[in-house]
């Protein structure tokens, strides 16, 4: 492989790893278009490499977030059941619904979430009588322990089902739906939502990545460089997430959601 292409791959995956670990997104929205458009790779191969990158980003960033008690493993596992079931349902729905219809709905949800998160301040419920759903994390940026009570777990799980269906149909959208569901609907603090999303996106990516790996369709050399870049980017992203102000993180995330919605709408319109 040409050295310029290798450097390009490393830079691309480093950016994907940084954004992925900072915001709890997979980074597939960056990896797939670049590999298909700039590297001339077919969509299936690009998707396979993207899933390997997501697994690397998730494992690297979630290990730190969980060790630092920012990610909520219990809530993540419980909600992810919905996403996993949704992904299976999505494969069935794909046979009956045009993917552009869902992409349009998905874009609408992203735009609504982005505006809501940008305009409305974060609402965290202080721990109350419900001890089972009350948790605490230490925010290094403010130097304070932040207590929060998780609300609406059952309806939040339904939101995760929708995230699973959407990501199965469109190939993106896991984290971009899961984080607003956790932060806006379930009142989980933004940093916890992003860190928990970092953890669960690895679980979501596992099935697909394992199938591609066992089927032997992964371009090993490209995947190797993407993995190394994603790992380095994730390490940087973890450091930034720990130190960044939660309010700023929420606003930057809402801008990113608008960008994702724009990309999806352009894709639906056949422009990209």
């Amino acid at each position, binding site marked *: 492989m040409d050295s310029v292409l290798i450097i390009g791959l490393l830079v691309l995956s480093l950016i994907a790893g940084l954004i992925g670990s900072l915001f709890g997104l997979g980074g597939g929205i960056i990896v797939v278009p670049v590999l298909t458009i700039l590297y001339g790779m077919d969509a299936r191969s690009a998707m396979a490499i993207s899933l390997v990158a997501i697994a690397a980003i998730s494992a690297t960033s979630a290990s730190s977030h969980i060790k630092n008690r920012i990610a909520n*493993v*219990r809530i993540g*596992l419980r909600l992810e059941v919905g996403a996993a079931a949704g992904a299976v349902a999505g494969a069935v729905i794909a046979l009956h619904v045009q993917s552009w219809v869902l992409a349009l709905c998905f874009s609408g949800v992203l735009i609504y979430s982005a505006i809501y998160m940008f305009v409305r301040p974060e609402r965290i419920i202080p721990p109350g009588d419900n001890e089972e759903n009350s948790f605490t994390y230490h925010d290094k940026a403010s130097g304070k322990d932040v207590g929060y009570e998780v609300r609406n777990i059952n309806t939040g799980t339904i939101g995760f089902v929708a995230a699973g269906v959407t990501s199965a149909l469109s190939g993106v959208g896991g984290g971009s739906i899961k984080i607003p569901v956790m932060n806006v609907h379930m009142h989980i603090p933004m940093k916890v939502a992003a860190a928990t999303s970092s953890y669960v996106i690895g679980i979501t990516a596992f*099935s697909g990545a394992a199938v591609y790996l066992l089927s032997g369709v992964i371009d090993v050399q490209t995947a190797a460089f993407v993995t190394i870049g994603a*790992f380095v980017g994730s390490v940087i992203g973890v450091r930034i997430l720990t130190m960044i102000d939660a309010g700023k993180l929420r606003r930057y995330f809402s801008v990113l959601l608008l960008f994702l919605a724009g990309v999806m709408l352009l894709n639906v319109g056949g422009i990209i």
Partner: protein
Amino acid sequence: MNLEDNTSFVLRYGSLIGVMLVAIGVIMHAVGVGANEEVMIAGIAVIVFTPFACMIISFTTLAVNRERRYAIPALALILITVVGMAAGYYLG
């Protein structure tokens, strides 16, 4: 048993070992040593299967701690994931 410590341990060492194997494979390829692709594949496999190992560890820890409220969803998640993977492999 502590859920967070066990989960982060598996993720940390899974990602580290996987990336190290991938990096060793890349270096072997650069200097022209054989079997470099097999080493890279081994590294990628470790990274891909790390989240699954993590689910198993999380479920085991929750079960040992008798946290049924979260152990049952964790088991359900493992089953759905395995079924989804098998379906993807055989039907995809």
